[in-house]
């Protein structure tokens, strides 16, 4: 692998890109550089425009809010005086996404390892194809499936969790026989983000240098030790990126959550009780009937989701940057 890498690098006498950022002066190069730079700038402009629009509309709403926008447990922008806040939505969005990540990432890594290192080739291709197909199912279909199948069948799991883990507070169920709750949302989101996490992780695991694995095998390592010593460290930053892609999906999921959850503005950390809500679900549920102030209030909540997503992505970048020594670029 190391030798191929050397061949891949362009010969030094024809640099495509000089350090100062100037091209070689050929027309094609200049046009292409202009195009790429233009695209990059356009992206920044679009992002800035979105942020500007959200901030402007949000400021209108927040200036008229008679509650504290960050700590109020209510959403009544059409009431006089209007009172609304995002506390419940923020907590609900974070909790449902965390549940989804806790369930989805280990399963996805397991599937990816199985496909890339254990399964016979024919099974691996089929399985990979099936997992990718899951990504193509529209979210409303997941929502309907969740409401018709998942919700009734999770009643048993909820009762079991309440019985044996009720002492943990979060699994204490105060309203029995109910499963339109945050745990159900988390499980549904986990299934929805599984394909993206799996498929990126699988690609990364397949990129592990063959020599590393062969060296470990030559030293007498078992297959599990090979995975532990070479595949997982190499793939770690890739798995983190994959998880962040999945997290982004989970944070913004709308219709599936709206179909499965029984929303309310009561703050509760009992995962098995109905209640809570997420930003996207709240916007979907409230937008149709909202008056102009209500729409601005929803846009303000959208701004918080926007910021939350930026923070999460930033954090992911930091983590990946700190683990650069393992990344494929230096292997």
């Amino acid at each position, binding site marked *: 692998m190391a030798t191929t890498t050397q061949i891949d690098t362009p010969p030094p006498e024809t640099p495509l890109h000089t350090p100062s950022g100037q091209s070689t002066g050929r027309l094609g190069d200049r046009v292409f550089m202009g195009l790429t730079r233009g695209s990059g700038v356009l992206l920044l402009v679009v992002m800035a425009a979105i942020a500007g629009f959200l901030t402007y509309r949000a400021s209108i709403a927040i200036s008229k809010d008679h509650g504290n926008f960050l700590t109020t447990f209510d959403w009544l922008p059409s009431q006089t005086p209007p009172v609304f806040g995002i506390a419940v939505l923020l907590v609900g969005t974070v909790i449902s996404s965390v549940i989804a990540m806790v369930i989805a990432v280990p399963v996805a890594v397991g599937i990816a390892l199985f496909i890339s290192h254990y399964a016979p080739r024919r099974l691996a291709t089929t399985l990979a194809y099936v997992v990718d197909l899951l990504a193509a199912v529209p979210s409303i279909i997941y929502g309907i499936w969740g409401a018709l199948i998942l919700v009734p069948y999770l009643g048993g799991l909820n009762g079991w969790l309440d019985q044996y883990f009720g002492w943990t507070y979060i699994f204490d169920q105060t309203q029995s026989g109910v499963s*339109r709750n945050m745990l159900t949302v988390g499980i549904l989101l986990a299934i929805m983000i599984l394909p993206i996490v799996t498929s990126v992780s699988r690609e990364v695991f397949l990129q592990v240098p063959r020599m590393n694995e062969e060296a470990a095998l030559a030293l007498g390592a078992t297959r599990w030790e090979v995975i532990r010593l070479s595949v997982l460290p190499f793939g770690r930053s890739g798995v983190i990126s994959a998880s962040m892609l999945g997290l982004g999906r989970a944070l913004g999921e709308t219709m599936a959550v709206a179909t499965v959850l029984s929303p309310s503005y009561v703050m509760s950390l009992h995962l098995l009780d109905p209640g809570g809500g997420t930003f996207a679900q709240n916007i979907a549920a409230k937008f149709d*009937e909202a008056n102009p102030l209500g729409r601005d209030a929803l846009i303000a909540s959208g701004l918080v989701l926007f910021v939350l997503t930026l923070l999460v992505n930033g954090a992911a970048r930091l983590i990946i940057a700190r683990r650069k020594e393992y990344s494929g670029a230096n292997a």
Partner: protein
Amino acid sequence: MKLQQRKTRLRAAALGALAVSGALVLTACGSDNNSGSTGGTGTKTNAASNVKCDGAKGQLRASGSSAQKNAMDLWAKGYMAACSGVDINYKSSSSGEGIVAFNQGTVGYAGSDSPLKPAEVADSKKVCSGGRGIDLPMVGGPIAVGYHLEGVDNLVLDGPTLAKIFSAKIKTWDDPAIKKLNPGAKLPSKAIQPFHRAEDSGTTENLSKYLTAAAPGDWKYPVGKSWPAPGGQAAAGSAGVSQQVKQVDGSIGYFELSYATSQKISTVKIDTGASSPAEATSENASKAIAAAKVVGTGSDLSLKLDYTTKADGAYPIVLVTYEIVCDKGNKADTLGTVKSFLNYTASDDGQKQLSTAGYAPIPAEINAKVRKTLATIS
């Protein structure tokens, strides 16, 4: 050679695509013509169905309450069959959305479960030049309280008990208050799971108005489109609530009667103090709406319903949906169609059709006022 082959293949594909799209275009035209020709032969009046089409032309867009969607579909079908060249397009969204669309001037009329609020009337003055938006009661209907309880198929409740159930003060089905109203029934000690609407809804507002009037001691929440009481679970839309009630044993929820009939959900009979409990049917809803008074001022005909009626057989949890139009300053290109179509829906013939779709007709004297008002709008 190869290139040549590819070229011909491409050309063949292009020809094929052209043929297919051409066929599509042609059939599209064909179906247009068909719908035109089934619409009648261009006569202005159709004696058979007593529809007067004077001044009706072109497309009429309307939007609003999903509660009256089935009625609108029925009427629009009958009307368009009689008046050729008129296309009525009622977009079923929600009352709030309908009013927003009306005040933006994008629809000819709006459908709403609750009359215009003062702020909305003020907004409407911008669209209705020289006039204001007015409410015309057009469709009545019962709000069914559906339940799912194995072994119980004849449940009677009254206002205060309903209020306590929906505010989670009564938690099990064998509560003394429910037992007292249902002496013969075998009520299990199962937990009650009340379901309400997740999003803002006119149905919620009307139920809330009923509970406020019928159980003032037990229901002290603000009347509005969003669900005010603690406890219970929420589901999206009437469809979502009825689906949950169908699915969950021990549940109770509220929705338009049609959702209960189509999904075979048992409905609660209401003990109003009359000689026998009233069942949710369109006939019984009409009896309750008959006690309504017009409280709108000027040409506005918004109604005040009597939720505490003790008339025999009157089912008190009813809603009336309105059509909202301008009294003056309607758009010239849709005015004729609006007048003619709403005249038809308010006619005896039009109202008669309501009961077939699970709705309740508006009392005849109020109907007469609606028709009189329609004649004056401009």
